[in-house]
């Protein structure tokens, strides 16, 4: 009896042990399966008229690990974020000209692809005739191809940047901001950028060229940028070897000096006030230091590398690279007297 009892007990123990082992093995397998089979999020970004929004920067931040996964939407507005470990994510989409889209606690499950279409909210000009997406797209699209040939040189043998340049589209990436600056930016966005200097006909940005039409005029001692759509419509860069003045008063456009580094002109600008907005809505301080490197690899292209360094507002220096293309000589810079009829100010209510 005892033997039989023992055998039964042993059998039960055995069975239990085997079940536990099996369960453990299954658990292991499930875990392994989970690790091997990450999830994904895909979808498309479109505006309120269901037109695609290309180039949106899509980001998913793992709630637990803080790991950030990024993707850029294609021309049709489609995007895919693959290889996401199962879990909850903070999802965001940003595209130039649109409101930032955010969703918290987006659940990604093992091996599943989650569809998340992004409705890009209105922000800037949307459908205003003349500043609508079709107009801006057409302006960019109908730009003629730049001519081929070698980059011209000045009488002194330096690269000559003179010419009429179509500015590049600014990228969607933004600098990493210090907490106070991030809070200011968030507040500005919450108010739909109502206090942006642009709306008051004050300078649009701190760079020497923008995305529209710019004419560079270079002499031995001086480089000037005539900017069609900014205030003031020019920037001045001294190439005569002078230093920045010691008693510099802060100004909107700062003080720029340029030095040659081989084929590249390195422009150093300091002395900014803290009133311009960086990118869409980021603040900066009067410690802002902008380094612009210009290089003309051939007749039709101007490579522009701009580094923004502001220990008062940015976590670290931020560099943007872009290329301007030479416009036909027949193009002309038009007049832009912004304050001529600026009726908007009193109606910019924000929310």
């Amino acid at each position: 009896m005892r033997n039989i009892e023992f055998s039964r007990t042993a059998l039960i123990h055995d069975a239990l042990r085997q079940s536990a082992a099996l369960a453990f093995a299954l658990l292991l397998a499930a875990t392994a399966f989970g690790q091997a089979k990450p999830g994904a999020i895909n979808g498309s970004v479109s505006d309120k008229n269901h037109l695609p929004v290309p180039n949106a920067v899509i980001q998913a931040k793992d709630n637990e690990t803080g790991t950030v996964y990024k993707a850029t939407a294609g021309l049709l507005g489609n995007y895919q974020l693959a290889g996401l470990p199962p879990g909850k994510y903070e999802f965001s989409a940003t595209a130039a000209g649109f409101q930032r889209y955010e969703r918290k606690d987006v659940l990604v499950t093992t091996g599943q692809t989650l569809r998340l279409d992004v409705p890009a909210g209105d922000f800037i000009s949307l459908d205003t005739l003349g500043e609508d997406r079709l107009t801006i797209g057409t302006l960019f699209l109908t730009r003629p191809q730049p001519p081929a040939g070698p980059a011209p040189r000045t009488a002194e043998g330096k690269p000559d940047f003179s010419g009429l340049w179509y500015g590049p589209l600014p990228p969607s990436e933004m600098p990493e901001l210090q907490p106070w600056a991030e809070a200011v930016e968030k507040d500005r966005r919450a108010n739909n950028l109502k206090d942006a200097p642009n709306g008051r006909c004050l300078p649009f940005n701190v760079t020497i060229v923008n995305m529209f039409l710019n004419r560079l005029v270079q002499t031995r001692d001086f480089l000037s940028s005539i900017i069609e759509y900014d205030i003031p419509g020019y920037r001045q860069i001294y190439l005569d070897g002078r230093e920045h003045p010691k008693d510099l008063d802060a100004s909107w456009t700062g003080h720029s000096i340029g030095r040659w580094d081989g084929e590249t002109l390195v422009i150093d600008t300091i002395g900014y006030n803290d009133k311009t907005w960086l990118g869409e809505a980021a603040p900066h301080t009067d410690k802002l230091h902008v380094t612009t490197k210009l290089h003309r690899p051939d007749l039709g292209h101007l490579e522009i590398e701009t580094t923004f360094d502001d220990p008062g507002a940015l976590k670290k220096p931020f560099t943007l690279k872009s290329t301007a293309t030479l416009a036909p000589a027949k193009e002309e810079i038009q007049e832009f007297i912004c304050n001529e009829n600026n009726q908007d100010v009193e109606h910019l209510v924000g929310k």
Partner: protein
Amino acid sequence: MKTTRGTLSFITLWLFLAIPPAFAHHSFTAEYDSSKVRQFVGTVTKVEWTNPHARFYLDVKDEGGTVTNWNFELGSPLFLRKLGWKSESLKIGDQVSVEGYLAKDGAKMANARTVNLADGRKVFAGSSANGTPTR
């Protein structure tokens, strides 16, 4: 052929490009309400071919016969001109219908998204849809 079609679809898609906020005169949503679209029919009383926005004004009669003058915002002449639009594309006395977004603060202002003449022709349009300005 394949290349042509690819190029065409590339072109079509890239036509929809938003102006980045740093390069727009002001933010749309700070001034206008995208949920309040209204159709206006009236007579052009004034055209301002000015910066930072071209503007035109319409006398609009309501059901009760009261006439109100509305102020419509367009893009900057900088951009309008590049696309072949002219200051005389819209003239005083023209009968037009306009679709626009209303100002948030209740002012008699709107952001014009389409402008049609009485005979149905579009003004300030066709730069992309039809190839050339219609007027």
